[in-house]
């Protein structure tokens, strides 16, 4: 008993320290968002006034609206394209290195490079930039992540049930909707939720592809301009909401991913 305790203790201390490092800064922010004075200098009582201030800030509300529009469109497009790409890649007879690299690249390419490439591309085409160009850009990495989540599920997919369905006379279309799709659905939803959070939180690429003017500012762009010059109490409240939404979406995504691993 004593031996197991002492052998587990260092591991527990390490985990405590690392999780403390990861979560304390976030916890401070959340706590501060409920501080009446809004300042880290002292606790002056619990208050939700900074959340109220957010609702009165039209810049923030518009940015939130833009972010939501971009994330919805980017999620829908990337979920369809990413799922099809995953199906295509996993049903191929031979693995194609070019295809693997293409689907992997959006996840590793430095965002600053993709951002300036897209800025150059859109302005070379003479395309007016706005929310639509942010959507086009977000689909690039969103679809790569959806594809990788769905592929992970397809790796354990028993393709013989597809054959069985075809042998029993179902068409390819019926087989997809009645056999393949229901099995993949949890991973598709998990991928979509991941795409949604990535899009909501993405800053650099949106910053470069939003074009001039304030009309297509997204929430991360708004946050960036607010925090560049120090602390504003409203940001604490906004940050708490944004992180709450992201964490919820990710928890559901993870839960769906784990559900399907149970045979």
């Amino acid at each position, binding site marked *: 008993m004593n031996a197991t305790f002492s052998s587990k203790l260092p591991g527990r201390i390490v985990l405590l320290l690392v999780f403390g490092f990861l979560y304390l800064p976030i916890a401070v922010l959340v706590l501060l968002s409920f501080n009446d004075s809004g300042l880290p200098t002292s606790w002056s009582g619990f208050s939700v006034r900074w959340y109220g201030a957010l609702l009165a800030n039209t810049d923030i509300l518009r940015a939130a609206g833009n972010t939501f529009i971009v994330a919805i469109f980017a999620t829908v497009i990337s979920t369809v394209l990413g799922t099809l790409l995953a199906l295509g890649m996993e049903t191929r007879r031979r693995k194609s290195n070019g295809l693997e690299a293409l689907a992997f690249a959006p996840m590793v*390419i430095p965002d600053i490079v993709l951002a300036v490439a897209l800025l150059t591309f859109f302005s070379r085409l003479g395309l007016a930039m706005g929310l639509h160009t942010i959507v086009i850009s977000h689909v690039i990495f969103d679809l790569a992540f959806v594809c990788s989540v769905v592929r992970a599920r397809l790796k354990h997919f028993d393709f013989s049930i597809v*054959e069985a369905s075809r042998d029993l006379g179902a068409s390819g279309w019926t087989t997809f909707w009645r056999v393949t799709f229901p099995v993949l659905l949890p991973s598709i939803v998990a991928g979509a939720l991941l795409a949604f959070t990535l899009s909501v939180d993405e800053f650099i690429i949106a910053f470069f592809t939003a074009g001039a003017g304030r009309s297509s500012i997204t929430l991360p762009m708004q946050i960036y301009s607010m925090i560049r010059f120090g602390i504003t109490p409203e940001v604490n409240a906004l940050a708490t909401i944004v992180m709450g939404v992201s964490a919820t979406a990710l928890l559901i995504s993870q839960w769906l991913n784990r559900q399907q691993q149970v045979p």
Partner: protein
Amino acid sequence: MSLNATRPNLLAAPGVAWLVAFMVVPCLLVLSYAFFQRGVWGGVEYTVTLENFARVADPLYAKIFLNSARIALTATVIAILIAYPAAYAISRAPRMSQPILLFFAVLPFWSNYLIRTYAWIVLLNREGLINNLLRSLGYTGEPLSMLYTESAVITGLVYNYLPFVILAIYSTLSRLNPELMEASRDLGAGPVRTFLRVTLPLTLPGVAAGGVFVFVLSIGNFVTPALLGGGRFQMVGNLVYDQFLTANDWPFGAALGAALILTMIVLLLLQARATAHASGERKGEAAQ
């Protein structure tokens, strides 16, 4: 398999088309800009030149490149030093709780990068939490200026990318065959020797994968130096940003971007070789 040969290609086509049209073509386009001259009023003049690449090697810019490489490397080393024990502790936790621990270690990574960086402004500020804590503990001197320093930038980079390094190292640790460690112990090696001679070498691919990731994202970062460095620390990312959004010298910005991509490709290839080498060794061991 009843699927015919064209179906997979057809399924992949829309996604591939999107990636080619909006990722490959724009990257090639911006790369091609690096070979042209800057126009008099900004913009691009289509005269072929290698001048932009020469400027990347100019001592002024080479210094920024080297300086950001040094900052990125420091962040990488610290991240690995923290992530390794964490990943090791997770891999030693009860099997049931491992996925949960891992999930919560990675969760911050998927949430908003700006907000996680902002949290450090709140902590490190002259009027921030740490200075307040010190004051309430009886410290009466000048408040410490921790923000807008190189250490603040490094702390921010480590904090933001740590989850990914934990994930990368954990994934190699969890695939490790425990019999190898047992064998080492049975043959008389102590725990330290077993770790250094067996566990560590076999998990180096994970360390390399995590390390390359942190290094590449750090060197190309412009948000953390801008927010935690107060704009006082130019990194390659900031330099690229400036060329495109303020200096309006796109060809030079493109050349800098090309240098970043080249760095990344070289590191990824080295990492792939290291991984192949390690798995080759593993196969060799299995054969014996």
